[in-house]
Every structure is written in C-alpha cells, then in structure tokens.
C-alpha cells in the first residue's frame, strides 16, 4: 500500500485516494475544430511509461481535492506531489 502526500493534508494511506490517470492532459479549447485523430489522441492515447509518471489522484476520503503526483511506475516511489494548476518539477510534461 502506497503512502501518498496530499498537498493539502500531508501523507496519507493509499486507501484514502482514488487514481485519475495521466496528468496534464488539457481539454482542447475547441473540440469541434479537431479531426478524429486529434480528438482520439486527447481521449484515448496515454503515455503509460515505464518509469517516472505524472498522474492525477483524488483525495476522495479526505479533502476531496484532485492533485498531481510524480510516481515511478517501476519502483512505485513517489517523488513529489503538487497542486492542480502548478507545473511539474523541472518542466517535465
């Protein structure tokens, strides 16, 4: 079981959170202007890396805030968490 640092509440047990997938996927400003491929890219395509991953978590049994986490998908090590709207460390996207 992971220990996840909520930017508002501090370290909490994984069982308080739910997972939200890859972070920093921005909804296109004008979806109608996108072709099918570009829309599908937004909708379906995810990086799924082996290693560091920027991802969203929801503190669902806590403050109910969504936030971002940098987690290694191989070692499960969590390097940091940061609020929605903030930039990831060292400009990684």
């Amino acid at each position, binding site marked *: 079981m992971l220990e996840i640092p909520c930017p508002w509440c501090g370290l909490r047990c994984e069982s308080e959170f739910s997972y939200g997938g890859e972070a920093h996927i921005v909804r296109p400003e004008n*979806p109608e202007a996108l072709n*099918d491929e570009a829309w599908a890219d937004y909708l379906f395509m995810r990086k799924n890396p082996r290693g560091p991953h920027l991802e969203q978590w929801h503190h669902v049994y806590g403050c109910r805030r969504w936030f971002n986490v940098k987690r290694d998908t191989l070692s499960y090590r*969590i390097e940091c968490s940061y609020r*929605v709207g903030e930039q990831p460390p060292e400009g990684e996207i």
Partner: protein
Amino acid sequence: MPAGRLKTNETEGRITLSRPITFSFNGKTLQGYQGDTLASALLANGIHLVGRSWKYHRPRGILGSGTEEPNAVVQLGIGARTVPNVLATQLEIYEGLEASSVNCWPSLEHDLLSVNGWFSRLMPAGFYYKTFMWPKSMWMKYEQAIRRASGLGVSPNLPDPDRYEKTYAHCDVLVVGAGPAGLMAALAAGRTGARVILADEQSEPGGSLLYSRETIEGLPAMKWVAGVWQELESMEEMKLLRRSTVFGYHDQNFLTIAERLNDHLPRWECRGARERLWKVRARQVVLASGALERPLVFGNNDRPGVMLASAVSCYINRFAVAPGSRCLVFTNNDSAYGAALDMVDAGIQVQAVVDCRPRPRGVLPERLRQRGVEIIAGSVVVNVKGTHRVKAAQVMQLPAQNGILKGEKRLIHCDLLAMSGGWSPVVHLSSQSGARARWDDARACFLPGMPVQQERSAGAANGSFSLNACLSEGSFAGREAARLAGWEWDNQPDPPSSSMQLEEPVQPLWLVPSEYAPGRGPKQFVDMQNDVGAADIILAAREGYHSIEHVKRYTALGFGTDQGKVGNINGMAILAQSLGATIADTGTTTFRPNYTPVTFGAIAGQEVGEKLFEPVRKTALHEWHQARGAAFENVGQWKRPWYYPKSGESMQEAVNRECLATRESVGIIDVSTLGKIVITGKDSGEFLNRIYTNAWKKLAIDKARYGLMLGEDGMVMDDGVTIRLSENRYYMHTTTGGAAGVYSWMERWLQTEWPDLQVFLISVTDHWATAAVVGPNSRRVMMGACQGIDFSAQSFPFMSSREGTVGSIPARINRISFSGELAYEVNVPANLGKPMWEVLMAVGEEFGITPYGTETMHVLRAEKGYIIVGQDTDGSVTPDDLGMGWALSKTKDFLGKRSLAREDCMREDRKQLVGLLTINRTEVLPEGGQIVEDPDAAIPVPMIGHVTSSYYSACLGHSIALALVQGGRSRIGEIVHIPLAEGRVIPARISDPVFYDPDGERQNV
C-alpha cells in the same frame, strides 16, 4: 519421564519439568512439558515417523526445528477449529491438544497409497501434466482423484468460530527477529528514544540463542537474553511482539505481521481474538531474520531420523530431548561439529562425522577430535538404510575429480543422521521489499541485495554467521535506523562479545555424487514437501527448461506450504550445475509474501458475513415500509422497497395491483434515494451547460428540465431532472446508483479544467426525504395535503416547482414524472419524512392511495419507454442510440459532444433502443436475453442485440420489453427470436419503445 528426554540439570533447556502436559497424536495419548513444541514432544516419546509425503507417500519424520520444516506437517484439532498445514516444529503443545498425520490412509504405518513410491520411476517431473492432460474432458476427474491422493490435510467446512482483529501501527524502527542481531538492533534503536516494534515468530526471544551453549559477556546466552529483554520491556516506546511473524514487506515500508494470540493455549484459557493482523508503516526496518540450515542431497535423505544438525542441537539444548542414541553427522562446514559436541556432551553416541572437505581443521573439528570422535574427511554419505527410521548409512570416499563414485562403501549403523549443507540467510523480506538477492561465492549463499526501501539486514540474515558479528551488526543497524528516523544517543555502549569460535569456510556440496546415473539410484530429495528429487530437476533441464521460474512450475520445486525454505537453494544450484551455469546466472525464484502461511481469518478480520465493511443506507421512511410488510431490494448501498405484498399475494400479483392502482387512481413511492446535488455560484448555469447535453441558461426560476450527462467518449453516464431554485442555485437529481460518481465527476472538472468557474457543489442526498405522489388523483391528494400552493394546471404546470407546506411541514414540491402520469414529488427535511408521508397517506385514503416499490416504478417507466441508465445502457450507448437526439444542443459545446461525431458513433447499424412485444402476450422475456434473426442459423448464431428491461404490464395486458437491437429503429414490425438457455426460442415483434400514452397526454392534465 519418556525415554527420549535428557535428564541433567544442564540440559533441561527451555521446558518446565514441573508442568507436564497431556496431548494426543493420531489418537494416542502422550505427555510433554510446558515449553515443548509438538515436534520436541513427539521425539521425546520416541516418535520419528509423523507423516507421509505428498506424491509418493513416503514415510517422513522431523527434519528441522522451526518454520523451515517441510515434512512434519500435521492436522490440528477437529470440527470448526481444525487447522491444516500446521508445523509440528512451531506448534507449542497445550493441555488437550489433538493432532494427526496427513497424507496417509488408512493409517500412518500402513499407507496403501505408498505404492506411488514403488512406481516413482514412472512418475517423473511433469508426470501429472504429461499423463492426465488427455483427453481434456477427463482432466476434471483426474484432478479430483489426484487431489484426494495428495494435499496437506483438510480445511474446516464449518464457519470459523474464532474472532480475528486488525490493527494499524506506525513506528520509527521495526526490527524483524529477536535473535542476537535483532535484540541488539532493538536495544540500540530503543535507547535513542525512538518508537520501536520488535517482532519475533517464536514463543520467546533468543532465536538461535535458545539452543546455544555460548556465553555473551560472560553470561550463558539465555541469561543475557533475559537481561536484554528486561531492558527492552522497560522502554516506553518499545512494542514487543512474540509469536508474531512479519510475513510481508510491501511498498513504502508497509509491513504486515500476524500475531498469534491463542494458538498456544488450551481452549478454556483462550481469551479475545485468536490472531491479530498488524499493518505497520515503519520509517526504518532492520531485518534480523536469521538463516536456515540447508540439507544435503543424497540417497534416501528423506528418511525419518535424518535431521538438520542445528535441529539436533535445538532438541538437545532447548528441549532436553535426545532425537537418537547413535548418530552419524554429515557436513560440508564447521557448524555441524557444534551439534556433534552437543550430542557428545548429552551422552549421545556420535559414530563419526563425515565431512566432504578433505582437511577439516577448524577449532570445532579439533575439539571433537579431542573427544575421540572419528572424522571421515573427503567423504560423503551416499545412501540411507531403513524405511520408517534410519538404520544405517553408506559412506564413500570422494574421488580426486568429479564424477561417478567408485570404490568401497562403508556401512555405519545409526538411528540419527545429522546433516548440514551450509546456511541460507532468510532474504525473503529483503527480496519482497524490492532488493535483488545476490549470490556470494565465498559464503555459498544468497545475500540481501542493495536496499531500495528504508531497510537493512543484520546478522545471519546478512550472511554474517558468527555470533560476534550478529551482535555488532545488529547494534550498528539499530543505531543507524534510529538515526535515519531522527533519533540519536551518544552514549551507546560497545556491542557485547561472545565466546563463539571462528569457523573454517564452507565447501559447497549441492548434489552429493553417487555411484549411479541420475534417476537410477535411490531418490535424492531436494524439496521434500513436494517430493522433488535431484533427478527431476536434471530431467527438467534436459527437457529444455532453463529458467528457474519454469523449472519451479514444471517440477513443483518450492511450491509447498514451506515455499522451499530448505530446498530451493539446493534446487537452483543443481539446475545451474546441469546447465553448466553459475548460481548467480540461474538466479533465484521470486520471493513473494507470505513468508509463512497466514490464516484467512487474520486476513478477513472482522469483515466476515453480515459484518462486511459495506454500509447499509436506509431512508427516513424505512421503518414505515417494514411495518407495511415491504419486500426490499438493494440499489447500490440503499435498501429500497421492492413491492408491498398483501397476504397471500405473489410478487407479480402485488406489482399488477400497484401498477393498476397508480394508473387508475393514485400511488405513492419513496424516492429519497435519488442522488441530490445543490449547485451554487454565479457560473452554475454555464457549468450545467458544459456537463449536460442540453441548454440551461434560459431555464426560468422554479422550472425543471431533464438532463443527459455523457462521458467525454460520448456515452450516456447519467440522467435526471434539475430544478433552478434561484438565480445562481440549482438542484440536481442523479440516478440512485450514480450519485457518488457524478459528484466526483463534476468536482474533477471544476478543480482541474475549469477552476475559473465560480461553482460550488453540495451533496444533499441524505438531507431530504422525498415522496412521489403519482396518478390521475395525485392533484386531489396534493390539494388536500398542502397549504399555500395553487395546484391548477395553469399556475403549477408540468416541469415546475413550488414551495409550500405539507401538514405544517415546509416542503418543496416538484411536478415531474417518471411514470407518464400526473405526478408530484414532495421534498421535506429528512427527519420530517415520516410525518409528511403519513399526511399524504391519510389524505390519499379516500382515493385508495397505494404505496408501490421499485418493481412497479420500473414497469410504469418501461411502459413509457423511459430508460434507466445502467440497465438500458451499458457504457457503450449514445443519446442517439436511445432515440434521444432531441436532448443534444447544436449551439454549444458539452462534454462528449465531439465524440458523437466520430465515425463509429455515426454508424447506422449501431444498437438502438426499441420495444419488444412477445408473440405470446403473457411470456415475459429474460433480461439479458440475446436476440437473433434466425434461431436455426449455423453456430455461432449472429446476435443482433439483447433485452435490457422486461416486465409484464397489467395495464396493457401484455408482456413488454426494451431492447438494444442493431439498426433497430428501421426494423420496427420485424419478428426476432430470443433463444433461452433451456433450448426454447421465444419470438417477439420489434416495436416503438413507448408502449403507453405515446402522446404524453396523461402527465399534462
């Protein structure tokens, strides 16, 4: 006193002679003492034969003295409390204990299935796979027979009467193991003031010191342990757990411990929970889990009376038991000489020590020589004579070079054979933590790998086998762990030193050479619990299995309840040898939790049966429904009235009556469970515009609108009516089951994509009790029950909302309908739900107001073709599929809109919602039934859709169904078929999904 019990003051060990205990084994009453394990008590009674092996049913005895034991597995107790797979070497005896052997029929001494052993040459590795896989249809039968013939005991078939609990803990330092290294680690960490948990699987601390005759700081080892324990107990932040196995090391220093609270007590002394599962988050971990002695692999090395040398020491020194009277020792290292000295001092005749090393010259061999014991150097034991007990062993000289042995065989008589093949550090937890165990040639063992979590190993677990090294490494590790957790103390004393003598290096001996070709001579067992022999591994390698993980699965090496604790390393080494590779290349199999078997009870804890940790939600009117005799159904976590049977009524009769009463006069239903979310803030209208498919900004105050919510993929995810309460305040209804998900969904968009919107969400589902009054007489009921509202059609039209009172209770009344009838939904604060309901019932009495449940609600809405999200949709259904294209705004964007223009969503042959009318009007289709065009088509019959909702409609006098059918709207009027599992085929005609009042006149009166 039984014959096998030693009686000198010096060797009474850890048992209490003044406290005899009576127990039984295989129905025979026996005596032991407080402090005995079942294994030590059996040996004291001269019992060596304790079970039969899994595959060949060979007689088996006691190999070890702790958790490593592969053979002495017993069935404990009877009835609901019977426990299979109990290790006799771990089980502390108590008054009244009943244990029995496993794998033998009809009795331990005369096992009929041991014929398996005679044919063992015909049952090589992979035998079951190769023989029983064909024909495939028979596999289930073969498997049953094989399972009956094998297996390790039986599980209870009655509910577990015991209680189990769980607890969470945080600590600075968790120390695993209370042997010399662990005790020193806990002491050093505890002295800094750090919060420490020390967990040890045995009944008392000491680990290897429990059977050591060494001295520490001039004290007998266990006197020293007692002093340390006393100091640990005096520490305020120290938690000492005995009989507690750390069985799992998970991510981020999360460890799980099974604490056995009652298993050592007679039933009448058991109090509270049987076991406690600890879930510990430790800042730092010290692994002082010790090492396990390896057996040697030679002919018939599984016979009762062949034991690990350390176990022999343990039975003598700890339990005052002589496991034999004449012993032969076989070793490749110095530690077994310690056991030989223990035996000599206990008066056991040591026939000789057979050492594969050409010139054993360490301190211990010298000491033994001085006692006049013969050392047969450069030689090996090749075979054991005797079936139910060792009678003799054959010894041969090793040749100068490797190869098949030739020459003279020397027969040495003995009733005990103590062997040592070297030591394997217990790296299980280190490996589970993610560290990759590394092979060490000099010490001939796997050592813990580079830590990837906050852990370190110390002592024998770290490959440091001398007592002095254990003491100093433990001390250092405890200190370091505390420091990293933020605790330091400058006055740490130097670690103590012991009397133990340094040893000469081990000489690896994985497979004892023999005079036979592989598979020809007597069986040389590697994994005794699974009856895996050296020949099986060599065969697997020859058949092309080169990965240790594959060999494990092909031969079953390491698959038993012992997980190959003593056998695995030998097996890996033999594989490496057969492949001409090194052990470092071959590597080890993955160590996974659990280190030792954990009961289901401990894992389940209190969450069993009715006490499952799933909340039950009841509405404010629940007691009223109960008093009225309602049958309930579960909707999500909610209990909802399903129907209200009158005496003698079947469900169908009750539902028919409720439907007709509602359509003809008036019915009432508790709809409090619908999700309710208040949306406030100046951007609420804009927000609704984005998450619903239709337009919201022009909705007038006190007006209601139906909304359809899509995922970004364009598929329907929820629906419901939303009411505008004031300029910036809306009241949203969601489906009962979807409430929590919709709430999270909306929060996510607001927090992540649209933080600029000023919108606030409040979940108010539980705040309100809601009754729907439904039917042509509902207006009359409302007029009688309410004050302050004009109910005329002109001033309170369909899809609008008013505030007033019911009785004297303030209420919000919404004129919305899920039945197609004139209907009103009355909302009052939840704690006033019951008086509100009673007023409506009293006023409605003259109209025969009829309470109805979810089943009638479903029939009424299906008659109107209204969908239920999650029943008529399944996450792959678009609004257009449902014929609800009218709900899609063309002028604004909304979530999911762009997806509706994707090619796949535009296909004309998508499944579309239609009605089905069975040709036989009383035949009700099963929901989920598959729809086909031609039931006689060749298999696989193409399926063109499925039934989503299906009921008998009393109002229509006809069975009706909703279905999703490929291109369904263009097929209206066609006959389709629904084949049933039983073989019958039901024909039905595709129709419009609206069966009743298609023009919607009834709700607009």
